[in-house]
């Protein structure tokens, strides 16, 4: 049933927890690794950015808060919800650096909602709606919200001109004021041509490194997934690159050919680590390579198929990514559930932009990206 499926997917992709109690350290759920107020102990609330569905409630996207304190009488129940008064294809959200505000966006209408979750986490308030992203930048489909000190770096998926995948990153200050824009490179850098596409963002401050990935534009992600995969022309318009930026100068320094729509990115941040990881959507090979190699490049493929081919069950993709690649579980990484990967989403009714870690129903292709030369 389409409604149920979309709701479940929506719940799965935009869940963030708030903490009121102070205890021991635990895992951090946020992308940005250096914000304040990191999670300690038991979370008290879960904030869920939900897709509006016609005929269900007021039909609008909502921020829903669930009591997650086992000692509470309302444990496990919805205790608060805020309707934003429309459907914009609710997708990801992210905390500001002080963890007091949640920025949540719509892939379709390109609106960004800023919720105050710090004053009273049990009752968030909508304090600002940012609707000038397309006008200020020409970009559309705000996707990733990555907290930088005092500002938000937003990775987008599309543009307003042709609604394709050429896009860029936008910077807003924490008050919601536009600061700057940076186009994803479509030029050729070091013999590799960029596609101009965008998706995720990940920063490694010790290396002055900003890594971005690429997915697809509005023309594809708002279509029914089943239609897209049967449309050879549409399938040509997926990203196949990652870009290493100089974080200080915000200039692209290297483009990496990473076929198959590389998506989520995580850095290994502990001292001595020199790699990042991504999971690609359209193929299922695993690749390990330096990001800036000259003679030191390793390229190990443990399995690869084309999207048009049959399902390729890459057994080593099971379990935690950290275990898969490095024999240990690292808290920075999320598990890639084979059950989600194995779902035959060609028969599912959902838009291409609705996704979990395993995009498009394929076993995720994992790319272990090492920084051997750039910072070595």
């Amino acid at each position, binding site marked *: 049933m389409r409604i149920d499926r979309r709701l479940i997917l929506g719940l799965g992709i935009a869940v963030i927890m708030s903490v009121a109690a*102070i205890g*021991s*350290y*635990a*895992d*951090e759920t946020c992308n940005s*690794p*250096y*914000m*304040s*107020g*990191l*999670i*300690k102990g038991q979370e008290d609330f879960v904030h869920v950015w939900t897709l509006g569905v016609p005929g269900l409630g007021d039909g609008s996207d909502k921020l829903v808060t669930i009591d997650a304190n086992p000692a509470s009488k309302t444990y496990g129940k919805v205790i608060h919800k805020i309707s934003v008064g429309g459907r914009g294809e609710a997708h990801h959200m992210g905390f*500001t*650096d*002080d963890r*007091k505000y949640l920025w949540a966006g719509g892939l379709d209408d390109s609106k960004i909602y800023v919720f105050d979750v*710090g004053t009273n986490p049990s009752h968030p308030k909508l304090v600002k709606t940012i609707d000038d992203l397309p006008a200020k930048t020409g970009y559309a489909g705000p996707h990733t919200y990555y907290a*930088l*000190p*005092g*500002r938000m770096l937003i990775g987008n998926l599309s543009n307003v001109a042709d609604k394709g995948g050429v896009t860029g990153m936008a*910077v807003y*200050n*924490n*008050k919601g*004021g*536009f*600061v*700057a*824009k*940076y186009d994803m490179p479509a030029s050729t850098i070091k013999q590799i041509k960029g596609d101009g596409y965008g998706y995720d963002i990940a920063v490694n*401050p*010790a*290396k*002055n*490194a900003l890594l971005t990935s690429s997915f697809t534009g509005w023309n594809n992600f708002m279509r029914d997934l089943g239609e897209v995969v049967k449309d050879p022309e549409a399938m040509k318009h997926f990203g196949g690159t990652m870009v290493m930026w*100089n974080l*200080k*100068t*915000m*200039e692209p320094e290297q483009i990496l050919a990473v076929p198959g729509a590389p998506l989520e990115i995580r850095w290994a*941040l*502990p*001292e001595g680590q020199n790699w990042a990881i991504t999971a690609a959507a359209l193929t299922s090979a695993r690749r390990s390579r330096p990001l800036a190699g000259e003679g030191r490049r390793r390229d190990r493929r443990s399995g690869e198929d084309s999207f048009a081919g049959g399902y390729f069950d890459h057994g080593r993709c099971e379990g935690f990514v950290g275990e898969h690649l490095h024999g240990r*579980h*690292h*808290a*920075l990484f999320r598990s890639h559930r084979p059950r989600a990967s194995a779902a035959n989403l060609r028969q599912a009714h959902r838009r291409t932009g609705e996704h979990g870690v395993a995009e498009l129903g394929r076993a995720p292709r994992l790319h272990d990206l090492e920084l051997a030369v750039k*910072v070595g």
Partner: protein
Amino acid sequence: MANGTEDPGKATAPRLEFMPPPPGSYQLQKIQPIADAVLLDSTGLTVRLSALTQGKITLLTFFYTYCVDPLGCPFAHTTLADLRDRVAGDRALAGRVRFVSVSLDPTHDTPAAIASYGQEFTADPKFEWRFVTARRVPELLPVLDDFGQDVSVDLDQDGRATRTLHHMLKMFLIDAGGEVREIYSLAFLQPQVMFNDIKTLALETSPSSRPDSGARRLSPALAARSRQ
């Protein structure tokens, strides 16, 4: 710790594992202007915040005198002392840079308290390093809100306030026109990078003094990318 995983949230000292871009080879974003306010200097006189954030390149941070977190206020001021020495050694920056340390606790950090605390940092009369507080908390709160500087009082197990103010260590680089151009949280407190940022701002207003230390002109694409 949870399930034996490594905790990524614990604060660690910043690391510098790259060659910082040379001054003037990049442009710092114009992040936000600063609203004015009235504060109290270490002699007990009122002072406008705008007088401390305009006319010179300013590095501003928040602190409290009894902070003992080794990666908190003491670390911030150690970093600033390092930068003060670098600035003092660069003739092109003479008289063009100031530091401002604003107390988070007007109740305990009186002018006398901040004067005592700041003694070791303000010994050089040629370098302007101002320590300021506020007359009362309600006059400080709008300043904190404007800068986006969070602060809260840690509570003990009985819910009583402790002497620990929990705040995210931030340092704000402000141009001579009073606009925030860079914000450093702990992971970004890399003195060489910060020094290059200061010099980059200095080069904006004095192109004739562009140093020869590897500086280069902004690329046309970079210049066009600038918002203003």
